[in-house]
């Protein structure tokens, strides 16, 4: 349903008339174009009558807009009975003059044609009917009946006049037809019904009927262009609200504990983000369900509401199994905090499942949703469609700020063989992988966070065990030979002890060797010292000898000089005399 504020905004524009059909007003941005005719095309049995009747009934009950239903195919009694199946008390509405139904029998008896005619009878009856209940909404179901036995040329002009007339009357009208789009275009009907054209379609895929709705045209308004799956059940028509834009989520920084203390540590120490989507993938028996239940157990413990959708186990089986690992969810079911929904995906297909779940969500308003396993839903139908549908569903959940945990039986290996599996992970905020680690004929469980948007998550692979007190992560053990788990961990410990001892021995030997080397070295040093001292001695003797020699030389020279000086002076004297 639409929120009050949104509704106020829509009615303020006054361009649309809310249909009240689940999901329809969202995809059309407020319903059908007000005071204009809309053409609803589709084959027999795809829900035209139910949808158009719902449009009238919701209009009359919720929006105080009485309606007129002109039925060309079913009588009034038939319609009243048929609507009982979707819990509409038509007789009461007729009595209260909120709805007026008229059956138009065309081709009552053999009709011959002799000249030109017009549909004035229909106009007169419509006007009469509109006046009776002061109708604001009109349905003609279906227009095709008119085409039987009537001249196409005349009809084209008359239908054109009818649409114009309906517009002038100021009624929001819905005209159904079995004709398809191509026919509309070919006959030129499109020109005047082009305000809004919607097609319904039902096809059988894998023995399951799938209904689709598409808005072909809506003049002067934005609308989704996708095919929207829809279903009809006891609550009437529900259309999977495929958001036309990205979910407008009020992001919070609130965290939700995973219910496994050690595992929170791998997620920034705080757990998942509130309102985020989480994927837990891994092959069978890796403990996905246990991790999921841990989350929901924690949620309920904190007085928040959780919805658990099980597609593999029955609810009683699940309750029993979880008790064995110390998670007793029974009290939460009893107190209404936890709702279990289980069904076999083979009964309905994905969109029907999603619609059912969506209806529960609207009613129950959980804060946590678990889909276990989402891969079971995917066996039905074609992959690209499923991916799209899931993406829309995730958007829907985000718009409701529901933290959703999906489990999936996919592994990194299976993605290689089936790449579309990876698409699921792309829509997830957090992707956790659980895997078996098989070593030395022993199977252990490993868990790691492959991605987690917006948090500084751990990149380690951690081993975990499922005990009768829930899930426990074991201390991390990394060796040069990789991550070790179980008994091989013990072996590794022994092996390393041995290695250590060996190494110590090696050191001792080396020490000894060095000691000997030192002795040799010291001997050598003393030898060299003696040699050196001897040479030093010799050097000093040599120095002494040299000094003595020098002294002797010096005294000798002095004597010679003196002698020379004496000789020279006597020579001078004799010269002077000779002059």
């Amino acid at each position, binding site marked *: 349903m639409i929120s009050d504020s949104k509704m106020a905004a829509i009615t303020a524009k006054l361009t649309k008339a809310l249909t009240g059909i689940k999901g329809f007003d969202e995809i059309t941005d407020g319903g059908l174009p007000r005071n204009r005719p809309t053409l609803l095309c589709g084959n027999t049995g795809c829900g035209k009558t139910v949808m158009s009747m719902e449009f009238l009934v919701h209009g009359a009950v919720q929006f105080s807009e009485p309606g007129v239903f002109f039925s060309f195919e079913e009588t009034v009694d038939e319609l009243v009975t048929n609507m009982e199946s979707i819990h509409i008390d038509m007789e009461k509405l007729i009595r209260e003059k909120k709805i007026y139904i008229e059956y*138009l029998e065309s081709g*009552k008896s053999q*009709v*011959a044609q*002799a000249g030109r005619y*017009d549909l*004035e*009878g229909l106009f007169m009856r419509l006007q009469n009917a509109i006046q009776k209940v002061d109708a604001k909404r009109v349905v003609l179901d279906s227009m095709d009946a008119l085409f039987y036995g009537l001249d196409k040329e005349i009809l084209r002009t008359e239908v054109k006049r009818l649409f114009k007339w309906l517009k002038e009357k100021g009624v929001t009208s819905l005209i159904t037809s079995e004709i398809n789009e191509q026919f509309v275009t070919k006959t030129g009907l499109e020109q005047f019904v082009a305000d809004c054209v919607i097609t319904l379609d039902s096809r059988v895929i894998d023995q399951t009927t799938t209904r689709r709705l598409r808005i072909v045209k809506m003049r002067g308004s934005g609308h989704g262009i996708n095919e929207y799956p829809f279903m009809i059940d006891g609550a009437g028509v529900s259309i999977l609200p495929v958001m036309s834009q990205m979910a407008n989520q009020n992001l919070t920084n609130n965290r939700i504990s995973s219910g496994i203390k050690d595992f929170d540590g791998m997620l920034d120490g705080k757990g998942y983000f509130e309102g985020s989507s989480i994927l837990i993938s891994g092959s069978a028996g890796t403990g996905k369900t246990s991790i999921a239940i841990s989350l929901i157990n924690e949620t309920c413990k904190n007085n928040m509401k959780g919805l658990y959708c099980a597609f593999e186990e029955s609810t009683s089986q699940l309750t029993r199994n979880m008790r064995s690992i110390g998670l007793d969810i029974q009290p939460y079911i009893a107190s209404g905090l936890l709702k279990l929904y289980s069904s076999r995906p083979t009964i309905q297909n994905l969109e029907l499942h999603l619609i059912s779940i969506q209806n529960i969500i609207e009613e129950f308003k959980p804060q946590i949703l678990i889909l276990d396993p989402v891969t079971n839903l995917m066996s039905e139908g074609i992959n690209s469609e499923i991916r799209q549908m899931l993406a829309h569903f995730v958007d829907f959940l985000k718009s409701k700020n529901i933290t959703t945990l999906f489990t999936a039986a996919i592994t990194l290996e299976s993605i290689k063989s089936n790449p579309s599996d990876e698409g699921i992970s792309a829509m997830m905020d957090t992707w956790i992988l659980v895997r078996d680690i098989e070593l030395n004929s022993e199977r252990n469980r490993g868990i790691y966070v492959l991605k987690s948007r917006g948090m500084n998550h751990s990149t380690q692979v951690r081993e975990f065990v499922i005990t009768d007190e829930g899930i426990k992560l074991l201390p991390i053990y990394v060796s040069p030979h990789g991550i070790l788990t179980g008994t091989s961990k013990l072996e590794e410990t022994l092996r390393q002890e041995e290695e250590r001892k060996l190494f110590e021995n090696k050191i001792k030997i080396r020490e000894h060797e060095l000691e000997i080397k030192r002795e040799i070295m010291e001997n050598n040093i003393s030898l060299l010292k003696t040699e050196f001292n001897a040479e030093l001695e010799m050097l000093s003797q040599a120095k002494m000898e040299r000094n003595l020699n020098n002294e002797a030389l010096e005294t000798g020279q002095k004597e010679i000089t003196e002698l020379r000086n004496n000789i020279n002076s006597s020579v001078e004297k004799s010269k002077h005399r000779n002059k």
Partner: protein
Amino acid sequence: MVEQKRRIEEGDQLLTSIADGPKYILRLFVSGILMNSIRAIRNLNQICELYLKDDFKLEIIDIYQQPELATDEQIIVVPILIIKHPFPERRIIGDLSDIEKVLEVLILR
């Protein structure tokens, strides 16, 4: 109840008229202001005068004057000529300009 009573009365009327009334009992539903209806009235009058002589009873009904009757008769298209008698009931739509066609259905020839 009123509806039922009316129908019974109508049936009685029809029976008496069959017994000692004219051979042809005709009802023409029209919408007075539309050209096709105006033409139909004119054409039918001509046909009756020419071919049925005085052995007919013709009611011309404007759907806007008697909407309930028109609704009961399941009128969607106008003009429409309903041949109530002789049996079986037959209907001819259009402005009755195709006289051959009208006679074919009317006189069952």
